[in-house]
């Protein structure tokens, strides 16, 4: 038996609750033709890491981060022309916040802050607005602009 020491919800309940929004997120990042591959890869990475999570907080933001890094990696592996020493089938190491930071590192401070508030701290737009001292509409706009910048990096 591999009973978890903390009560993680059945993985399916995460897929059921957030699968559709993750697919939307993947579409925005990777385009409609690659979105399903990105989501499948993201769900597998999340599943591999899931039993090792130390708490069950902010699982939605965790899935968004994994989907974001999966979108970047799927894009990179598709465009990699030089064969590296690392076989592409090697299991991906566990996604975490450092990896997410590496992916968003090229963005400006303002865009990174917006993405962190949304996909690390798991805040709703009202709360992001409070933190950024702007309106919820403006907060949504900043997150969406930052996501678009990530996407432009991919195309």
């Amino acid at each position, binding site marked *: *038996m*591999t*009973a*978890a020491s903390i*009560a*993680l*919800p*059945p*993985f*399916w*309940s995460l*897929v*059921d609750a957030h*699968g*559709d929004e993750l*697919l939307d997120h993947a579409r925005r990042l990777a385009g409609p033709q690659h979105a*399903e591959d990105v*989501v*499948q890869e993201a*769900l*597998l990475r999340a*599943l*591999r890491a*899931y*039993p090792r999570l130390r708490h069950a907080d902010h699982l939605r933001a965790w899935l968004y981060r994994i989907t974001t890094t999966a979108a970047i990696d799927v894009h990179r592996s598709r465009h990699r022309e030089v064969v590296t020493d690392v076989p592409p089938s090697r299991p991906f190491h566990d996604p975490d916040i450092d990896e997410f930071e590496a992916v968003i590192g090229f963005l400006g401070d303002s865009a990174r802050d917006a993405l962190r508030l949304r996909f690390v701290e798991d805040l709703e737009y009202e709360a992001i607005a409070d933190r950024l001292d702007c309106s919820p509409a403006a907060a949504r706009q900043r997150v969406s602009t930052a996501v678009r910048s990530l996407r432009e990096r991919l195309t």
Partner: protein
Amino acid sequence: MTPLPDHLLESFAAEAVREGLADALFGVVDTPIGRLVIVQGGHGIVRIGFEAGEGDALLAGVAGVLGPRVLRSERELGAARDAVSAYLEGDDEELDLPVDLALVRSPFRRTVLEHLRRVPRGTTVSYGALALAAGNPKAARAVGSACATNPIPLLVPCHRVLPGTGRVGNYGLGGPAVKTRLLQMEGALDQPPLTGPRTDSL
């Protein structure tokens, strides 16, 4: 909310199974008694219950014992769904699927359910006789608890256990009406309840 496309979910589940990442898999099947969730662990079916009302708690219960990586795959559960569906539609074959009593923590309850599993279609058994078979003739009440908390109704046929009163008794998977219907379907109700299961192995 639009769920993810089926082909994406199935492809994800198939890859997870290939990598050995799934602690349990489940599917949902429409039957004449309602929509049933069927959960499969590493060694067989671990849980059957109604989707409505108890579905979330049911999966959480499985996750608490087998691990949190509980995934849905109608394809992986295809054979079990077909068998349960055919049985409840009135197919006259014994419902025979691998069973895993991992969710039963108490050794006595597990022994009871292991004996109950061998009570064949078309027969019934009393709580007292089942207690005797499980090695404790005075434990009819504990046998009642074992049946009431049976995680795998239908496959572990708790509907074949009758109280000594001559009534049909209660039934977790839809009440006495469903119990009666199952026993009639199996041809077990036009005879008086037996004092023990008709097998020599008990």
